[in-house]
């Protein structure tokens, strides 16, 4: 059978994987600084930190970045190890749907704050 390549994508994912990594690193630092200043001391302080507008924005951005980053990483694993096209497409779809679900769930949690 002919080997088909030349999908003409890859660069976008490669760039976004790096951008999302930077966003996640920045968010990790923000939360680490928060923990250093004792946001976890009481439930009220913990709630106030995550309800603070910019942190809320950053948390949601972090969740989206995590999902996109995970999508590329997990998809790469399927592409490496799963050869039958239909099995791979199914796994791709399930991964994408799960990640979309997680992103929605995260939004719902943040909305309540």
């Amino acid at each position, binding site marked *: 059978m002919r080997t088909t390549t*030349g999908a003409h994508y890859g660069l976008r994912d490669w760039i976004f994987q790096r951008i999302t990594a930077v966003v996640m690193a920045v968010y990790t630092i923000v939360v680490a600084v928060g923990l250093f200043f004792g946001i976890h001391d009481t439930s009220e302080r913990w709630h106030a930190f995550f309800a603070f507008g910019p942190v809320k924005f950053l948390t949601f951005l972090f969740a989206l970045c995590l999902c996109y980053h995970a999508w590329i990483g997990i998809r790469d694993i399927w592409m*490496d190890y799963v050869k039958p096209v239909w099995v791979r497409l199914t796994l791709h779809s399930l991964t994408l749907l799960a990640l979309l679900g997680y992103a929605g769930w995260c939004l719902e949690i943040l909305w309540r704050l």
Partner: protein
Amino acid sequence: MESRTVQFRIYRYDPDKDAKPWMQDISLELEETDHKLLDAIVKLKAKDDGIAFRRSCREGVCGSDAMNINGKNGLACLTDIESLKQPIVLRPLPGLPVIRDLIVDMTQFFAQYHSIKPYLVNYDPLPERERLQSPEDRDELDGLYECILCACCSTACPSFWWNPDKFVGPAGLLAAYRFLADTRDQATSERLDNLDDPYRLFRCHSIMNCVDACPKGLNPTKAIGKIKDMMMRRAV
């Protein structure tokens, strides 16, 4: 240095005779003048002429005697026997089909190399003598043109093991960048189009096994990074 006995453990497989591969333990008397692993393998062949391996120039130029030496890919002719722990375990390059003993089928490897069009594409009329470059432009090709296509790098790359039919591999991508970096080449856009694929280029996750394996000290990971950089500059 006096003559000494060296222990070897060699991968043997003759598809006409063997149901499956096996490892042969063999010891060998080496003379003071035997320095390189290839010297020893040539003597092994004299002792047991069934052992099959490739060799040609015996000085690290032809790339024929690439093999897996004590778990690491390298050229037998450039490897000092004294630097190796005994028994010296010799296996064929990993990931490629074995034809016999230490000889592998390089068809897939060369198919990937040919897929990147490893030649200069220039649409200008042929010059009277040669296409000149400035010394600075010529310097761009250092670290790229020296590749001898021994396949040590590509066969050390897990991405190439999993997708040898789709991933170009470090050797092919190093060659691709050699022509992308060449100021005389006029097919940059076509070359980048040819590589903009989740398999062909982006299976590389920069784990640098290729750099570790290259017997010529080249850096395919760096070249791959430069291809991605060129692609990004074109896109944004």
